[in-house]
């Protein structure tokens, strides 16, 4: 058995051992001679403490050194590994335990292959086993007895996690780096799903001297049909609003398939929503929608599954949790035109002050915009609104992080100073159509845009009837104009800004500028615009097994999980859709690229094992704990001795 260290850089901390040595020898002055009238009373004591004092000083030094050495060794994470094999080789096994290994007999083949590998390699030395899942985990280090490794392998089952081959490979390479062997080998046992191995950075080779031996299991992937995606646009704000569940069913085999897809909702009791037979072409996909009738609920847990499920569970079943959302919060900042305020308030809160409104109309205080994100989802802003630096920064941050601002241009000839620095808009002249009864009509509409799509049908209303009397010219390079006048002046444009959006409107919503606020298309367009902006707002991504839940816990399998951090206490966890695609990574020759020592970067900083390897509770941790305990004990002993040692 020899020793090496997982974090050898911490051994540099051993230089700190010089400090107590320096202190010791600095304080080690030659003992001073002191003339004293008589020694008769001292001689009578017959005790010479000088030698004892020297002994104590050396003991204190030893304690200090031992405490420091214990700390340094603990931080360096000593790693006991096997002696070299007769041939000077060490091996590490990277075993795929991702969800795709549940397909068919993949796991049985993989485990048998791993046990055979262990028996073969264990004849000479103890190898290490690294598990490949969402992250890399060391199942057995080099110092673990062979019998333990075998029993750990036998009880191992694949997880529901996705696959990150890169992390597992680098972790195994890092383990091998700690071994003083001339030849190092990594054996990979995996189903080699292309979706996972495609993500490996093949241009970054492993450490020199490491050879890779890939062993693919499941030579003939079974035909697989899976639900790879589920979408529940739940932009409702009441409990009795219908919603639609859309599931994507994908056929990963080349053979056409026909499956039955059903949906059910679990509330106080399970309610079957519907079932549909879906025919899929080879490598084809289809979306299946289920309309859920209005029902009073706080949080509905739903499941879409393929009936009957095949052996390739659990991608035949996906979960979703929906809950009513709160009303959208629409703010207004700096409204000079009271009429505009009235029109917008009437459009957004048609039910006056009752709580059933889809949106809330919230006046914003320009002096307290710091908590903008907590008080509003999007807000209307008058052009030229002066803001303090803190307020301007709050608005910029709000948009940069995904918020939306509807900027209404108007009388002001110039943008405010903070707007000039922030907005990529160039203001033009204020234009008028002429007499009050006259006006220009909308001429060019981009009806393909989601905001205007409902107006492409006759029932959506006629936007061409809107008459604009006055408007402000503006130009923005990155703007996407949705509505333009006949002369090409943009009236309604969308500008992406950071992760959010700015919607620029060439006039305020008053009758002095246009008759749009009294047109029937005004209210639906405002709602359509806000719904689109709401949809564009960043949302938390779906949680996969092995990832952190909102409350910080790890959900290790698909299903419904409870959390205090989610609005209604429930969130759904689904497997990575990539795990359903069992297509093989066939370019096994690419593994040779990882072996090329010539491409090894000069610095090894590109890989930090401590960030990707989750070492399970093992002898290593126990040893580190003992080292820390010893360091603490020596520190205490040093304190005690130092206080008792005579000067």
């Amino acid at each position, binding site marked *: 058995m020899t020793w090496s260290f997982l974090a050898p850089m911490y051994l540099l901390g051993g230089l700190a051992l010089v400090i107590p040595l320096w202190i010791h020898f600095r304080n080690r002055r030659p003992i001073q001679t002191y003339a004293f009238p008589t020694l008769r009373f001292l001689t009578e*004591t017959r005790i010479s*403490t000088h030698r004892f004092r020297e002994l104590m000083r050396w003991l204190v030094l030893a304690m200090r050194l031992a405490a420091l050495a214990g700390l340094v060794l603990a931080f360096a994470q000593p790693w006991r590994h096997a002696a070299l094999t007769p041939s000077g080789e060490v091996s590490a096994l990277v075993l795929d335990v991702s969800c795709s290994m549940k397909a068919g007999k993949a796991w049985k083949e993989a485990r048998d292959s791993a046990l055979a590998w262990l028996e073969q390699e264990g004849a000479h030395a103890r190898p290490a086993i690294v598990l490949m899942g969402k992250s890399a985990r060391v199942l057995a280090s080099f110092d673990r007895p062979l019998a333990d490794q075998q029993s750990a392998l036998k009880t191992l089952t694949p997880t529901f996690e996705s696959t990150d081959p890169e992390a597992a490979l680098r972790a195994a390479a890092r383990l091998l780096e700690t071994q003083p062997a001339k030849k190092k080998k990594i054996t990979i046992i995996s189903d080699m799903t292309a979706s996972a191995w495609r993500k490996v950075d093949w241009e970054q080779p492993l450490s020199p001297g490491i050879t890779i031996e890939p062993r693919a299991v499941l030579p003939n992937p079974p035909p697989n049909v899976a639900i790879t995606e589920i979408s529940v646009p739940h932009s409702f704000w009441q409990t009795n609003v219908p919603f639609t569940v859309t599931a994507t069913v994908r056929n990963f085999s080349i053979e056409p398939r026909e499956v039955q897809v059903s949906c059910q909702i679990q509330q106080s009791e399970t309610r079957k929503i519907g079932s549909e037979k879906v025919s899929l072409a080879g490598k084809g996909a289809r979306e299946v929608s289920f309309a859920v009738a209005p029902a009073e609920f706080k949080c509905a847990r739903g499941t879409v599954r393929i009936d009957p499920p095949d052996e390739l569970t659990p991608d035949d079943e996906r979960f979703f949790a929906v809950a009513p959302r709160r009303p959208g919060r629409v703010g207004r900042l700096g409204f000079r035109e009271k009429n505009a305020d009235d029109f917008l308030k009437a459009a957004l809160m048609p039910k006056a002050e009752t709580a059933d409104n889809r949106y809330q109309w919230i006046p914003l205080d320009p002096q307290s915009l710091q908590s903008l994100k907590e008080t509003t989802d999007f807000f209307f802003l008058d052009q030229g609104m002066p803001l303090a630096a803190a307020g301007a920064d709050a608005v910029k941050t709000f948009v940069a992080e995904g918020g939306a601002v509807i900027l209404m241009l108007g009388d002001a000839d110039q943008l405010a100073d903070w707007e000039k620095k922030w907005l990529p808009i160039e203001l033009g002249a204020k234009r008028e159509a002429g007499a009050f009864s006259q006006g220009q009509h909308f001429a060019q509409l981009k009806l393909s845009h989601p905001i205007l799509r409902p107006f492409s049908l006759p029932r959506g209303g006629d936007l061409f009837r809107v008459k604009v009397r006055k408007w402000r010219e503006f130009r923005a390079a990155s703007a996407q104009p949705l509505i333009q006048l006949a002369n090409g002046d943009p009236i309604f444009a969308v500008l992406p800004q950071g992760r959010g959006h700015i919607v620029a409107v060439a006039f305020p919503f008053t009758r002095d500028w246009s008759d749009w606020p009294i047109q029937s298309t005004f209210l639906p367009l405002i709602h359509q615009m806000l719904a689109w902006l709401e949809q564009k707002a960043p949302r938390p991504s779906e949680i996969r097994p092995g990832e952190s839940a909102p409350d910080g816990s790890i959900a290790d399998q698909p299903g419904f999980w409870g959390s205090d951090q989610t609005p209604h206490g429930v969130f759904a966890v689904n497997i990575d859709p990539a795990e359903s695609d069992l297509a093989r990574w066939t370019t096994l020759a690419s593994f040779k690229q990882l072996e090329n020592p010539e491409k090894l970067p000069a610095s090894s900083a590109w890989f930090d094992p401590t960030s990707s390897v989750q070492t399970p509770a093992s002898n290593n941790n126990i040893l580190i704990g003992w080292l820390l305990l010893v360091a603490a004990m020596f520190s205490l002993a040093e304190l005690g001795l130092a206080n008792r040692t005579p000067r």
Partner: protein
Amino acid sequence: MAEAPAIAWDPDLFARAETLEWRSRVLVEGFLQGLHRSRLRGFSSEFSQYQPYIQGDDLRYADWRAFGRLDRLYIRQFEAETNLRCQILLDASGSMAYRSEESSFRKCDYAALIAASLMRLLLTQHDAFGISLARKELAAHLPPRVNRLHFFRCLGVLETIRPEGIFDVAACINALAELFPKRGLVVIFTDTWDNLEHLIEALQRLRYEHHEICLFQVVDPREMDFAFKDSRLFQDMESGARMPVTPDWNRTRYLAALEKHQTRLRQQCLDLGVMHRVLPTDQPPFEAMAAFLAERESHP
């Protein structure tokens, strides 16, 4: 140990010493009229005894009342009052050169100041005084005299003190006893750290000669409390022997041994009728002497 300063005689100390008074407790044998009782008969107001008249006696002292009653002539005799003869013995061995950081005087300098003050006091009383320096043997000896010039000679002897060597207390006191035969006052300044048995035997010898003895034990305060901190190699100032000492560990035993020594010394002095006084060198010299004399007067 810091370099000892030269002795600076303090005129103020001498002036204040003149205000004190020393009365001998024992009968002394002086040769001048003085303040102290003598074992001889002389002229004073204190009646001593009757003596049958012998032809030639001064008839001024004949007791005529007794002659009238007894028809025999008696001569009244009075106690003689003579001066005191004082010999000061000052230990000038190496250990008397000690001065700790907390003290202003070396022990020998402090003893010299007290001795000079005492001599000044005696000079004022017209008592005779002499000075002896003691090491392995008497290094200097001035017999008692009563004059101002002698006082300055004694001061000169004190100024020449160079503490060194050992103090052979038996040899020095025996030699002093030979040189100082008449009963008088012997004042000894020493730290008593030498052989206590020899010191006691020497004191017995002096008491046998009917001398009044004052033993001033001059000590440095650091010797008494042993309040050292750092470990050091202690070197005996007389023998040169060395010993590593860790004060924290040795203090208790040191103080116990010191207390044992002091108890024995006090007891022996009490038994012999020797006045024993501990003089710490951090105490102002005049105050030390005045306190001693006041205590001496209150406990005759």
